[in-house]
């Protein structure tokens, strides 16, 4: 696979994942459990929008068809979105949101930590900033998982339910294909299968502190990073994209 094509796709996958999660974070703004948490979730949303813009811009540059970050974000359909399915899952409640941020965040943290050493300078640069952000997101989410898990009976039940519902999207976090293979060879991308053990350790540690049991077996979704999504994504996109689609000539 040609490096530029692979790299374009690699960037869009990262950007889509950050953007879709940001979109979910936006939904919380003004509706959080306490003012401080509204501010925290908005901060995370802002970090994620920033990440997506960085990776989209680079993808647009690699593609060199004169498209912008917004063209890529707003003018593709659900089958063309390459995010991991976990981030498109609805907020449901605060426990779901924190669990989603946690499970995805641990991988994103490990991935960016490796990509900081990427042979591609732009990827390395974008990852350096994202790494700092994800370090904080994981810390924030972990603290909440622990408090919810070891808080009250009600909170324990809710966070347990969140874990059990979101677990089916965790194998997918480690999925790779020829895009990754091509870029791993040239030292640009990271081999996420190598990060599994460390992810397991991070997750297990927090789950133990939260008095939660790690789910076993069950269905595992596949292929979000190649456009196979859950039913939630289409709705999210139709809301997110409607204005630029309705007025394609407008500049905002």
């Amino acid at each position, binding site marked *: 696979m040609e490096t530029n094509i692979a790299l374009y796709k690699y960037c869009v996958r990262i950007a889509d994942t950050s953007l879709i999660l940001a979109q979910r974070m936006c939904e919380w703004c003004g509706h959080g459990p*306490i*003012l*401080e948490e509204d*501010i*925290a979730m908005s*901060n995370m949303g802002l970090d994620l929008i920033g990440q997506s813009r960085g990776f989209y811009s680079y993808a647009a540059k690699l593609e060199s068809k004169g498209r912008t970050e917004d063209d890529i974000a707003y003018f593709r359909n659900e089958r063309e979105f390459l995010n991991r399915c976990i981030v498109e899952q609805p907020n449901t409640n605060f426990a779901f949101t924190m669990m989603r941020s946690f499970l995805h965040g641990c991988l994103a943290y490990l991935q960016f930590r490796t990509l900081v050493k990427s042979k591609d300078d732009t990827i390395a640069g974008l990852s350096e900033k994202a790494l700092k952000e994800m370090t*904080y997101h994981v*810390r*924030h989410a972990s*603290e909440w998982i622990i*408090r919810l898990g070891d808080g009250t009976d009600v909170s324990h039940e809710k966070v347990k339910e969140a874990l059990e519902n979101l677990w089916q999207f965790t194998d997918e976090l480690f999925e790779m294909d020829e895009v990754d293979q091509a870029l791993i060879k040239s030292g640009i991308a990271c081999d996420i299968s190598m990060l599994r053990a460390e992810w397991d350790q991070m997750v297990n540690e927090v789950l133990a502190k939260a008095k939660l049991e790690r789910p076993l077996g069950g269905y595992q979704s596949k292929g979000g990073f190649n456009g196979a999504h859950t039913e939630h994504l289409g709705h999210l996109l139709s809301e997110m994209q409607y204005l630029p689609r309705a007025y394609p000539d407008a500049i905002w």
Partner: protein
Amino acid sequence: MSTKDNWPTWEVFTQQKNGAAHEHAGNVHAPDAEMALLNARDVYGRRQEAVNIWVVPSVAITASTPEDMGPFFEPGNDKMYRWPNYYKTPEGIKQI
């Protein structure tokens, strides 16, 4: 109103750059110290205002009262010898 619904407040002190003194920034509500630190970071660090943060339970602060103002601070008024410009430097000497 139950206490369960009202998290205690923590006073937040931010250090704006390395080597500077921590200054009072405001407060946050938080259930415990670690969350207070995270909340302080999110509330008072949105514009890169801090390189380091302290959080202190508001109840741990003991403050002087307005009535203390006279006895606490006015006795310093007549001790001008605590200030370097009280001392005249002999002519021709640039530095002591």
